[in-house]
């Protein structure tokens, strides 16, 4: 071993290049969201729907129990199970709450404390920065959508010994929550990039969510035309879910348009986000 003098000396090692540069942003973000106050309460509330469906699944395997008949009927087929779970109004609202909780201050705090330039002064591109932030919201959203969905499948097999869904349905049951999570995450991050005030971002998010429903309801109430339902975020999610899983549609209009709207909006939000970050000086 070489004998060195005290003080500075040259390091003769090699710098390892990290393959996933945004990974530290992701891991730090996950931990900081989990440590927030009320996180456990929020997550417990969001998980409650899974447990209700779990009980209903069990009940559906025991017809003699004659409980929760309405819900049992709604999950009588695998397609109905996924569709009912993923497009349930409560879960849609909880996805909104999780997006706000996990994501409202992700970029707004960085803008407020002028720390975006600190990130970008590292060997990180703006894409790495966005991906890292995105992944935090996606993680939590999919933890309460995709993961419970897959667990329901497993439990269904355990309780009933039967899973006639097939590969196609399995793929859809993974793709749908991913698409919806991408939508929520892009909306949240875009809003977070618009203001340094986290409180303002949270409120704007809820304004967008509830206002879309209100306006859709107003137009529908006046014109009685189902096409106005495309204005509502919640209705689009439910309609797209029905279209994907091949179940009766929410309203009388093509289901694929809802998917196009959600994907189109996701792209728009990402463009706005990229434009906002382009303005940040490094």
């Amino acid at each position, binding site marked *: 071993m070489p004998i060195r003098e005290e003080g500075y000396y040259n390091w003769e090692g090699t710098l390892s290049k990290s393959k996933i540069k945004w990974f530290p942003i992701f891991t730090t973000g996950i931990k900081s969201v989990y440590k927030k106050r*009320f996180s456990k309460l929020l997550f417990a509330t969001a998980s409650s729907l899974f447990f209700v469906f779990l009980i209903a699944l069990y009940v559906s395997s025991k017809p003699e129990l004659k409980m929760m008949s309405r819900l049992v009927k709604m999950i009588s087929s695998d397609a109905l199970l996924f569709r009912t779970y993923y497009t349930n109004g409560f879960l849609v609202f909880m996805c909104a709450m999780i997006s706000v909780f996990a994501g409202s201050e992700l970029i707004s705090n960085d803008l407020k404390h002028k720390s975006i330039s600190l990130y970008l002064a590292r060997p990180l591109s703006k894409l790495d920065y966005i991906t890292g932030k995105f992944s935090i919201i996606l993680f939590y959203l999919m933890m309460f959508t995709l993961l419970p969905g897959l667990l329901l499948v497993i439990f269904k097999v355990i309780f009933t010994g039967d899973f006639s869904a097939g590969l196609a349905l399995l793929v859809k049951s993974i793709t749908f929550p991913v698409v919806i999570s991408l939508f929520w995450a892009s909306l949240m991050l875009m809003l977070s990039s618009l203001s340094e*005030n986290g409180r303002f971002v949270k*409120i*704007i998010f*809820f*304004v967008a969510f509830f*206002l879309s429903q*209100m306006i859709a309801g*107003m137009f529908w109430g*006046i014109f009685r035309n189902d096409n106005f339902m495309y204005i509502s975020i919640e209705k689009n999610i439910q309609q797209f879910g029905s279209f994907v899983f091949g179940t009766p549609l929410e309203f009388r209009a093509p289901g694929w348009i809802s998917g196009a709207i959600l994907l189109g909006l996701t792209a728009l939000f990402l463009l706005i986000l990229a434009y906002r970050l382009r303005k940040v000086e490094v």
Partner: protein
Amino acid sequence: MVNKNKIKTIYNFFVKKLLRAKKTKFFILFSITPLLIFLLINGIKLLYNDNLLAGHDFFKNGGMPFFFQFYIQLVSLLFGAAVLSDEIDSKTLIYLNTSPISKFSILSGKLAAYLSVTFIIYAIGSSLLYVTTHFNGILTKKNLLALLQLEFAGLIAIIAYSSLFLLFGVSLKKSTIIGLVYIFGWETIAQILPGTAQKITLFFYLNSLTPIRIPKEKGILNISISQPGFAEALISLLLFSAIFFAASVYIFKKREYLLADHT
């Protein structure tokens, strides 16, 4: 000790500051959303040679729920909770706390400023909508009185909700989330709960002040309580506001606000 001049100084400073803020401009635009929707709907109807939408119906079924079940609550949450929360977040509370001005004066001046700006942005949207939807006959005594009552009800609603959210902002760290849970959680659920749960919402009393009652959801077991009279509702809301404000001042006086990491 209450020093009116100092309250006035705080009021003037924060009104000016708020009127320049981005969020104020956004909420002014937001308040005219129902008006834009009304014009858009009638534009579409004109295009298809359809009968125009009756203004009064739109105002009753669209405008009123928008303002009194959504807009006022959100704008009061954003501005009311921000009275102290913004000072804490931006660490400017130090300038107020180390000036010779009482905590009561600080909160009074700031709340008055925030209430004024909130009312202005509400009044712009609501009055424009009312005038547009009641254009034929707006100058009748009945409509003018209804307009006055609409603005008065809005003012009382803003005072009540802002005082409540001020209390949240003074005492809680996550005041926005809790405020949102209150608005979209408690106030919505309480309307359908049996018993007197509705009386523990501000909306229950507010509905008695508005010129047009906002229809409520049928409760569980189809039980609904009768609405209080105008005077009772007004006194109740002002009393609640006074209690929330007094509690806010008390907490503000007693609490320590750590604005930065201690060194």
